[in-house]
């Protein structure tokens, strides 16, 4: 009987104790980074190499389809990818089809080193375009007929970069930084299916399993998987940043979840077994 009590008690712990445990597990690696190794996945490498191999002057679109809530994962991705793009002789177009996107994109643009690049000539922020799937389709079709001003209010006809960017056929690579599986699926439908655009899905980790079939089918060019993808990209570009900083705490807290699942279930099964025995 005493044994059963202990197991039952173990299963009924005050959640606040668990919260405290989690806080400790998160704080330790933030204060003293452990520097656990981060293996680099094929998909991240593929993305990196694709950017490396782009011919000079290619147009790369970075669509910010994320929200403040998901910025913890999409932010590190966007920052490291933009940093990398700005080091290359490329033209960069930032846009957003979810309301929060362009503002977050603007924040990311402000915090990265821009080198020689000039606004309006080498990069531009086209701002938010409402309409979800419709907006994405219209954007791929003809940007100039759709949008007349950028995020800062400049007429886009006066921006030299926009002479090279007219429709989806001009996109060498299309990044979507997003928390939404549906956003990636919209690009598969509206950009890849009609124009064969190379879409890179920089999605929060949660979305990855649902995107893999599109990658497998070649409908998505590659995937950056959440903050881990950001960390890998940071290592490839030798610019460790937020992603790498996150990864230690991420490792330990994930292990804590595993431990909780295991202990919780052992207690559950023990109680179940005891009950069965008592019934006999």
């Amino acid at each position, binding site marked *: 009987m005493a044994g059963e009590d202990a197991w039952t008690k173990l299963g009924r712990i005050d959640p606040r104790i668990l919260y405290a445990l989690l806080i400790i597990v998160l704080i330790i690696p933030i204060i003293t980074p452990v520097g656990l190794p981060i293996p680099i996945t094929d998909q991240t490498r593929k993305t990196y190499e694709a950017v490396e191999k782009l011919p000079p002057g290619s147009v790369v679109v970075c669509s910010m389809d994320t929200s403040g809530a998901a910025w913890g994962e999409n932010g590190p991705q966007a920052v490291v990818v933009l940093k990398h793009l700005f080091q290359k002789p490329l033209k960069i177009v930032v846009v957003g089809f979810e309301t929060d996107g362009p503002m977050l994109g603007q924040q990311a643009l402000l915090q990265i080193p821009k080198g020689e690049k000039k606004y309006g000539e080498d990069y531009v922020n086209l701002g938010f375009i409402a309409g979800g799937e419709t907006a994405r389709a219209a954007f791929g079709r003809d940007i100039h007929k759709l949008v007349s001003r950028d995020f800062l209010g400049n007429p886009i006809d006066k921006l030299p970069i926009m002479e090279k960017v007219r429709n989806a056929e001009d996109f060498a690579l299309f990044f979507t930084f997003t928390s939404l*599986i*549906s956003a990636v699926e919209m690009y598969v439908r509206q950009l890849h299916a009609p124009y064969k655009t190379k879409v890179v899905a920089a999605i929060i980790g*949660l*979305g990855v399993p*649902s995107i893999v079939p599109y990658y497998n089918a070649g409908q998505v060019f590659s995937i950056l998987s959440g903050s881990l993808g950001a960390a890998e990209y940071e290592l490839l570009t030798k610019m460790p940043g937020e992603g790498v900083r996150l990864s230690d705490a991420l490792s330990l807290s994930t292990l804590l979840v595993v431990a909780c699942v295991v202990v919780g279930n052992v207690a559950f099964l023990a109680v179940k077994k005891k009950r069965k025995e008592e019934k006999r």
Partner: protein
Amino acid sequence: MLTSGRGAALGALVIMVIVYAWLLNRASKGKVPRIRKMAGFDAIEEAVGRATEMGRPVFFTPGISGFDHADSPQTIAGLTVLRHLAKLTAKYKARLIAAVSKATVLPVAEETVRQGYIEAGRPEAYEPSMLRYLSDEQFAWAGGCIGIMHREGVAANIMVGNFMGESLLLAEAGYQAGAIQVAGTANRSQIGFFVTVADYCLIGEEIFAAGAYLFQDPVQLAGLGAQDMAKWIAIGAVALGIILNVLGIPVLVNLLKM
């Protein structure tokens, strides 16, 4: 005139439209497809029965979405389940508490429950207090639901609709309250939590079969029939394609590239 590379899609679309129209026509003559057994829906009755035995209430929520969103079909599926549930609570004389998260859903849910009580032949037993509108805000609503589950000590917790980040919170609260739980959602990212916490689970598209399964709605049955036909086509295409692939005949792949 036809855009190249899209012929196969056009063909598939035309076939699906024709099949659907044909099944709708048959349904209007009373010929509907039969639907398979679904344990998740059947478990609702068991849950209500248990609640009656224990003399404790049944809790229901149709999820976080309203009607103005791409997820509205899930809300509608949830409300269909609610109508069935109301019929059962009326029949077994169990106490029903349904909490909605969107103000726009409240009047529809009220009408739904009233309808269920009328269908069960006990309109007098319906009370507006069975329905509670908690808040449009995600966690305020979820917190309200959790409060009800704990305070009222619900014996059954039935959740069908669109659930987001709060799915795990609600399921955990139901588990802690010792309720028998039936949960269903088409939000892929949350189904795993329902499978591991709830006793019965409706997975993905299963929830959209609510009207067809619980009320034998002919239009919905025809829709399900048409979807199944399309699935048979997909299965046939994959099977044939694999055989041809092994034999080294790329005819079907080329056909689909048309």
